[in-house]
């Protein structure tokens, strides 16, 4: 072992003059500074760390435990093993209904939002004057669309004496209570979600503006028409953004709650037609006070979202084009 490797061997930290600035043990110099740096880093991380542990990790673990208990909120939980999970899939008709309603919601809502937001983004990308204003206007609904106020507004718009029926009446068409009809209630909620396309649109718009103009010029010279340019240039180049938006929308749609809650007064009606999964989960937890059962539902939802996201990532290798590969 050399002297420098000795644990307590002092090292001179010298300035240009050769005068020792301070004398510290060689091995403590690095580690002490490192520790000090780490301490500072941990201090900066502490708020986030506390948040992730106290607000996310611990409640998740608690909910995992509660999903194996019978817990009526008032009182103490009692261990029931897998009973909640078995009951979900074997004897709860409304659970199956809520899955079916949510799947319909996701299957219609996600493609429609993608389609609508991409269409508007393409339209706005054509060098319109006042683009910033249009972009802001279209973005506003996505800021307020999930609010209770907009849910109430939607209820009035699609109500029996609402704006939609008033417009239909001009054309001699007799309207109906769209929100209060089991056939039309879910489409009304989907329409509200599609209306909040602004966030996806802004992301699409950013992606469209990244495509070099020279690609389109070259294609035009080669005789490609507008559709061909869109199909062969635009779409492939924005597939990473389509993928990104799809995953985000998918996750949000599976967890959708507020709009269905507001338009159905928290019931998921009429006749369970708007009983989205999260709404049924809420009913079990806070109306019927079956917190253990609701926790099991939450974990089933988490797994379902995880599987759907994993499926998206797996499929992305076949349709997402990354320019650097």
């Amino acid at each position, binding site marked *: 072992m050399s002297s420098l490797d000795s644990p307590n061997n002092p090292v001179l930290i010298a300035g240009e003059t050769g005068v020792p600035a301070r004398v510290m043990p060689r091995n403590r110099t690095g580690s002490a500074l490192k520790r000090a740096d780490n301490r500072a880093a941990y201090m900066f991380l502490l708020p986030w760390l506390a948040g992730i542990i106290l607000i996310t990790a611990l409640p998740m673990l608690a909910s995992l435990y509660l999903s194996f208990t019978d817990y*009526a909120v008032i009182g103490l939980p009692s261990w029931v093993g897998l009973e909640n999970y078995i009951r979900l899939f074997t004897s709860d008709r409304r659970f199956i209904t809520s899955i079916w309603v949510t799947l319909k919601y996701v299957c219609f809502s996600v493609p429609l939002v993608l389609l609508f937001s991409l269409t508007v983004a393409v339209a706005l990308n054509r060098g319109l004057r006042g683009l910033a204003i249009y972009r802001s206007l279209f973005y506003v609904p996505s800021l307020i669309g999930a609010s209770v106020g907009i849910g109430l507004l939607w209820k009035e718009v699609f109500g029996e004496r609402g704006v939609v029926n008033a417009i239909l009446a001009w054309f001699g068409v007799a309207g109906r*209570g769209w929100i*209060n009809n*089991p056939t039309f209630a879910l489409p009304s909620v989907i329409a509200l979600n599609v209306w909040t396309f602004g966030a996806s649109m802004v992301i699409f718009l950013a992606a469209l503006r990244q495509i070099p103009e020279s690609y389109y010029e070259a294609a035009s010279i080669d005789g490609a028409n507008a559709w061909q340019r869109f199909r062969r240039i635009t779409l492939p180049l924005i597939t990473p953004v389509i993928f990104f938006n799809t995953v985000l929308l998918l996750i949000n749609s599976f967890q959708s709650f507020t709009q269905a809650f507001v338009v159905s007064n928290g019931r998921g009606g*009429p*006749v369970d037609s708007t009983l989205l999964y999260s709404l049924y989960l809420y009913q079990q937890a806070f109306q019927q006070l079956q917190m253990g059962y609701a926790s099991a539902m939450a974990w089933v939802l988490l797994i379902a979202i995880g599987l759907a996201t994993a499926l998206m990532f797996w499929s992305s290798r076949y349709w997402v084009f990354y320019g650097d590969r």
Partner: protein
Amino acid sequence: MHILEKGGGTRRFFLASSALALTLGLAASSIPASAQELTGDIRFSWWGGQVRNDKTDRIIQLFEQQNPGVSITRETADFAPYWERLTIQSTGNNQPCAITMQSRWLATYARPDILMPLDDLVANGTLDVSGIPEAVVSAARGADGNLYMIPHGVFYFALMYNEQMLENAAAAGVQPLVWPYNWDQYADHLRAIQPTLPEGAVATHNMGREPDAFVSWVQSHGEKVFDGSKAAFSRDLAIAWFNYWEALRNEGVTESPEGMVTENSALVEESNLANGRGYATNRPPNQLGSVQTVTNTVNPGATINTRPYPVGPDGTVGMDLGSNGIAIGANCTAEQLPATTAWINFWTHNEEAAAIYQSDNGVVAIPELATAQAENPDTQPTQVRHIELYQQVVDTAQPVFWPAGGYQAMTDVLNRSYDAVAFGQLSVEEGVDQLISELQQQLDQAAR
């Protein structure tokens, strides 16, 4: 002499001291006991709209003026979120000291770790239940027999109707409806009145999905709604209920199914009754005043009145009766308890407070106060009618014992089951089977 003088001085001293003590004692005793002793901050929670909030605030101010050492923190919410909040508060042992409670929800919370059993406080005179009928007090007990709430208002359910529509119908030859009328007679009355109504108006709201109406139907036919935590009404009787309303709906006497759902959740301002689009509906009579006020705005000239539910074939009255009162949170500290009990006594017995509240959340539980309100010329006519109808039917009412989660379960399942029938997704029999099985399932879950 000196001694005498001294002794006289001593006597004078004692006399003066005694007089002073007596004066101070008398002065002290003339101050209400509460005012000289009560201190502390307590929380009081209730449900209701702006009118009730304002009245409650005035009563709290009155109490705080009389008890300057006490401060009451107000916690209010609408009816449905009120119970959700109370549940969460109870979970965290953070419930208010004074909690407005309802007999229909009591079973869910009636446990010593959530609400304080009140029998001892009543027995030693701390809580005053004098004048409250024993039957009303009994309905405030939990399944364990403990008293958990001091009732201050008794509520009941009835029908409301548009008086002008009835007058027009009478002019057209429709026979007046005189109580006690049975369910068939009531249906015939609605059928007769339908052709006399303005275009687009219906004779009645479809009550097939309404728990209050269903309870009246079941009890007026001699059956019980619940037996402990079991659904006790028969399948045949529930089928007859669904058929009763389906027949009226198919004859055009009620709204469409969509209209029925809309009407069920409508604000008074939007309701068919207030807007002259409907002749009759079910609303609690304590809302008569607010319904009339709104009607004056949206449909000037129309007057709304209230009448009891129909009786059964043999004349049995099926009306449910419940009570609202104040419970004490189990987490209320010994220091807060005197102010809390004084507040409950004040709310329940103080005449000035009762005059402010005007039976806003149920007819005041003490009959003498109710009579005084009805006879007071300053009381709104709608509230007088509310009290008079209560006094007319109270002796024949049949209070339902609602098990834990029972009201929530009945509302949820009856709504969905009848809706499925009205929208043609289930047959009447299938709807009733769903009603009974899912109601029992929810009751079993709540009872575990």
